[in-house]
C-alpha cells in the first residue's frame, strides 16, 4: 500500500513485528514503520473485533494501538521505532496483570 520515496535514507533500524525481523528508517514512528512494512491492520477493536489501522497518525484517534515490548495499547504513531523493539499487533483489549 505504501512505498518509500526513492531518495529516502536507507532502513538502518532493525526491529520485530510479531516476532519477525523488520527494518525501518531512523526517525520513523512505529505506525509509519508498520505501514511501510505492509502491515495494514495493527489491531482488532476491543469492542467489535473489527480490524483497525493507523488513521490520524498524530495521536488523536487511538486507532494505531499495538503492544510494544510487552505493554499493550501503546500509540504507534506517537513513538519512534528503535533498534530491537518488539512490536506486536494486538487482538482486542490490552491485558493487564498485577
Amino acid at each position: 500500500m505504501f512505498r518509500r520515496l526513492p531518495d529516502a535514507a536507507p532502513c538502518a533500524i532493525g526491529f520485530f513485528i510479531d516476532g519477525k525481523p523488520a527494518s525501518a528508517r531512523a526517525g520513523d514512528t512505529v505506525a509509519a514503520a508498520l505501514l511501510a512494512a505492509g502491515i495494514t491492520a495493527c489491531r482488532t477493536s476491543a469492542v467489535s473485533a473489527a480490524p483497525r489501522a493507523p488513521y490520524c497518525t498524530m495521536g488523536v484517534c487511538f486507532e494505531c494501538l499495538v503492544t510494544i515490548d510487552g505493554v499493550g495499547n501503546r500509540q504507534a504513531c506517537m513513538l519512534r521505532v528503535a533498534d530491537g523493539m518488539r512490536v506486536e499487533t494486538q487482538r482486542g483489549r490490552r491485558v493487564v496483570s498485577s
Partner: protein
Amino acid sequence: MAGARVDFDVAIVGGGLVGTSVAWGLARAGRKVAVLDEGDIAYRASRGNFALVWVQSKGQGMPEYAAWTKRSSDAWQGFAAELQESTKVDVAFERPGGLVLALSDDELGARVDALKRLHNQPNMVRYPYEILGRGAVEKLVPEIGPEVVGASYCPLDGQCNSLRLLRALHTGMRQLGVQYLPNRGVDAIEFRGSEFHLRGRGGELRAEKIVLAAGIGNARLGPMVGLAAPVRPQRGQIVVTERVQKFLCYPILTIRQTDEGSVLMGDSAEEAGFDDSVGLGVVSTIASRAVRMVPLLARLNVVRTWAALRVMTADGFPIYDHSQSCPGAFLVTCHSGVTLAANHALAIAPMVAAGRLAAETHVFSAGRFGVPQTA
C-alpha cells in the same frame, strides 16, 4: 381547534433516562406519548453518570427510599431482558454485588456504624449485606492495595452500560410509537379546559397529561403547573481509562470496569452551580484514592475525564408529585436515573396512565420540604 382531540395522551418534558423510562412504560401501556427534549448541548446527567444500579447505603432518613430502590434493583433484570428482546440493545446489566472499600480501620468503623443506623430504622426493608475483612475482600478483588482493611458488600448491587440504556429506551419507545421531538425546549405550560398546552421553540403541543422529567429544568417548569421541584445541580467528575481485559468483576462504588473494558473512577460531589467543567484538583484526588484501593490502576492510561451535573434535592431523595391545581400534571425527578429506571418504567408509568400516584409514592412528594404548592 376547540373540541378537537388533544395531540397526545401524555407529553413528557425531558428525553433523558427518567423521561424515556416513563415514556417507554406509558407507550407499553398503550398510551399515545410525545417526548419533548432539548438538543445535544443540554445538561444531560444521563450521558455523564457512573452507571451503577446501587442499593447499599441508600435510604438513611427515609427507609421508604431504601425499599423503593430495592424494588427497582429487583425489577432490573426483567426490565433489561425486555429491552434487549424488543430493541436488540444489550444494556449489559449484571448484579454481582457491590463493594465499598475502607482504607483504614476508622473508615471501616464509620461504614459499619452507618449501615447499622440505616438498617436499624423502623420500617427499613430487609436485605442482606455483610462487612468483609481484608481476606474476604481479597477473594473477590485480588488486586486490592495493601491499605485496604475491609469492605461492606451487598449482593443486590449491580451495574449496567448506561449509554446503551439510554439508546435502548429511545429505540424501544419509538418502536412503541412514541414521538420523540428534539430541540423542543419548553418555555411555558398552560392548563386550560383540562388539557395542557406546552409552548416553546417549535410551536405548541396539546396533551391530556404531562410528566415533567426535565432534571434541573423541573425547578423552572414545576411552578407553571402548581408543582414545586427544589432541585439544584451537584457536580460529579469521572476519570476514564483505556480499555483493558476484564479484571474487576465487582463494582466498588467509586471504581468500576465497564462491559467494554474501560475503568471508570469517580465520583465527586461538588456544589459548583451550573459549571460542568473538570478540575485537576478533584480529578487527581479521585485517581490517587482509586490507586490506593487498586494499585494496578496506576499502570493504565487515562483517556478521558468529564463532569456532569446530578439533579439533587435537599435530602437527596427523589420527588414524585401529582399537581392538585392542575390534575394530570406529574413531576418525576431524582439523581439515580439508572438505578430507578426500572421503577420509572414499570411502576411510575402505570400510575401516570391511571391518573394518580399510588400511596407508596406519597412520601416522595415535594411537600416534605415545606414548600407550598404554587398557583
